[in-house]
């Protein structure tokens, strides 16, 4: 992608994010959009988001890859890894070369390296005193992520975080914890719906997700609602 095209796409990403916030949205859809934007626009190979669950632990809520290996790796990261450190320190944590000190987080580093991931960047989803989770960018190459992409990722993450916190203030009295837990449970229903569609339409899990997403987008419905209908068998593909 050349620079002009990339800038256009980045502009589109911010515009879409802003439109979504203006029009009303589901938190999970917003986070899914965010990881996809990061993957498409930045020099990263995969991206994921972890939110703090009701028990105070970080859980994977969105990922660019369907591969369970990636989700498991991020979950290990949440127990002991750069993303946990990022969440606690509320600051960006950069690991430009996992191989330099793999003993720092042995489980996470071994799993990441086994998948060909060599550098990781964790960005806090934070607004002033509140941190709701982390955005994790993974690269197969060694080395720091370039400054331009860091700024873009931080800005995308900031807009999404402000949107999530703002939505709660305006619309309902539920606690932040409830709101985040709701997004996490949406993910469970979406995974179940993928299994339903993969089985009934006889397609892969990846293709099933593409079908669900397509249906949600063309009907301007939240992923969670489409998934709920599929799991209840009220909707069939």
């Amino acid at each position, binding site marked *: 992608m050349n620079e002009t095209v990339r800038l256009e796409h980045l502009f589109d990403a911010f515009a879409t994010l802003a439109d979504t916030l203006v029009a009303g949205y589901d938190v999970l859809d917003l986070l899914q959009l965010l990881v996809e934007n990061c993957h498409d626009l930045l020099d990263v190979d995969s991206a994921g988001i972890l939110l703090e669950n009701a028990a105070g632990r970080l*859980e994977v809520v969105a990922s660019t890859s369907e591969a*369970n290996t990636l989700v498991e790796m991020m979950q290990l990261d949440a127990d002991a890894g750069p993303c946990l450190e990022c969440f606690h320190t509320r600051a960006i944590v950069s690991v430009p070369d996992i191989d330099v000190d793999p003993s720092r987080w042995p489980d996470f580093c071994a799993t990441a390296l086994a998948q060909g991931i060599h550098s990781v960047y964790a960005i806090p989803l934070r607004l002033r005193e509140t941190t709701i989770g982390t955005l994790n960018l993974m690269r197969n190459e060694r080395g720091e992520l370039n400054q331009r992409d860091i700024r873009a990722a931080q800005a995308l993450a900031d807009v999404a975080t402000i949107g999530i916190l703002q939505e709660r203030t305006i619309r309902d009295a539920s606690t932040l914890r409830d709101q985040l837990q709701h997004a996490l*449970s949406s993910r*469970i229903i979406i*995974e*179940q719906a993928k299994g339903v*569609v993969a*089985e*009934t339409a006889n397609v892969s899990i990846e293709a099933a997700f593409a079908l669900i997403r397509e249906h949600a987008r063309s009907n301007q419905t939240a992923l969670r609602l489409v998934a709920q209908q599929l*799991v209840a068998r009220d909707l069939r593909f």
Partner: protein
Amino acid sequence: MGVEDHTRTRMAVGWEVHQATGTVIAQTSCSADEALERILEYAHSSGASVDQVAEDILADRLKLS
């Protein structure tokens, strides 16, 4: 133990269990709660890990009736 309780611990090991739950829902027309129960019971009685059972279901190597 409700689905949310099960799944909260499940999240720690990936998403395959939820996907396999969907497969079982489609195959047996049962609810999500029941489908997950069946997976957990099968894992318990066969001695396999829940992740392994989920993987087998998704790969069509195992069908829970």
